[in-house]
């Protein structure tokens, strides 16, 4: 019998600490598979964020570092500039990247730093207990917006991919989702493409992955994926936002 599919060796044997049905696990796997397929394990350095994915350094079977909250692109900049032959990626959530780390990601992007950013957007702060994030949808209930996010009071969600794609620095920016198998396959292609951009020294690449947070959204894993498809995709349209030749 031939193996059709099994867990990639680029993930360690440590069980993921994520809640049941959390799609962080899927995204970890896609990143690991892309690194494995491109054969860049020995020269890849990952930068873990603060947030639910803080323990990513335990799960990826390549060199990993942990950055202060939001500062992963700054740490990645240092790693890449010291040895440009390394492949450097950050793995950040929306609370980390779009809020406290908004300055770091914007300036890394506009400088065209030759790094790859995996941006996991689940429209909420997961680790701290489900507070409103910069990406929380209008009307979405969180612990700090119990009556739903009111844009007249709290402003509107930030579309990070569209915002960064207006800059001249980035080489590749795409938004994908992991709510079903078809979209998981497309997400994998985008993540692989982002790493290829870095390998070919094209410049900054970012893949925004829409992700589910069943625990803090107060849903079953199945309901959460349906909610993602019905509510997040209209707010955050999928597709390639920028790609240089």
């Amino acid at each position, binding site marked *: 019998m031939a193996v*059709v599919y099994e867990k990639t060796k680029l993930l360690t044997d440590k069980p993921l600490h994520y809640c*049941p049905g959390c799609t962080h*696990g899927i995204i970890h*796997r896609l990143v690991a598979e892309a690194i494995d397929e491109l054969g860049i394990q020995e020269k890849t350095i990952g930068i873990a964020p603060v947030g639910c994915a803080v323990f990513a350094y335990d799960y990826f079977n390549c060199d990993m570092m942990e950055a202060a909250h939001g500062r992963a692109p700054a740490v990645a900049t240092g790693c890449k500039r010291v040895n440009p032959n390394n492949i450097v990626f950050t793995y950040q959530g929306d609370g980390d990247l779009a809020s406290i780390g908004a300055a770091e990601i914007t300036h890394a992007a506009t400088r065209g730093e030759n790094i790859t950013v995996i941006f996991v957007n689940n429209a909420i702060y997961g680790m701290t207990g489900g507070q409103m994030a910069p990406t929380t949808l209008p009307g979405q209930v969180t612990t700090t917006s119990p009556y739903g996010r009111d844009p007249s009071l709290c402003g509107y969600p930030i579309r990070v991919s569209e915002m960064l794609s207006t800059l001249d620095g980035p080489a590749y920016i795409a938004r994908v989702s992991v709510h*079903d*198998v078809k979209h998981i396959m497309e997400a994998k292609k985008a993540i692989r493409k982002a790493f290829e951009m870095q390998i070919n020294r094209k410049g900054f690449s970012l893949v925004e992955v829409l992700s589910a947070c069943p625990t803090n959204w107060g849903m079953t894993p199945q309901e959460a994926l349906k909610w993602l498809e019905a509510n997040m995709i209209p707010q955050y349209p999928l597709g390639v936002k920028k790609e240089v030749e």
Partner: protein
Amino acid sequence: MARLTIDRETCKGCGLCAEVCPKHLLALSREINAKGYHPIGIEQQDQCIGCAFCARMCPDAVIKVEK
């Protein structure tokens, strides 16, 4: 015929794999694992077509598919 190998001790019983199985062969088990979850199990293994949708959907990579 295809064969699924499920790491039942790592499974968290989220059931996302069962949702995407085109043959509806997967269901949560009655027993619980060491973590206290009802792990996923396959009924009628002989009907599995080895599409690996379940394995690609699984957040915890607990499913190995052979064909």
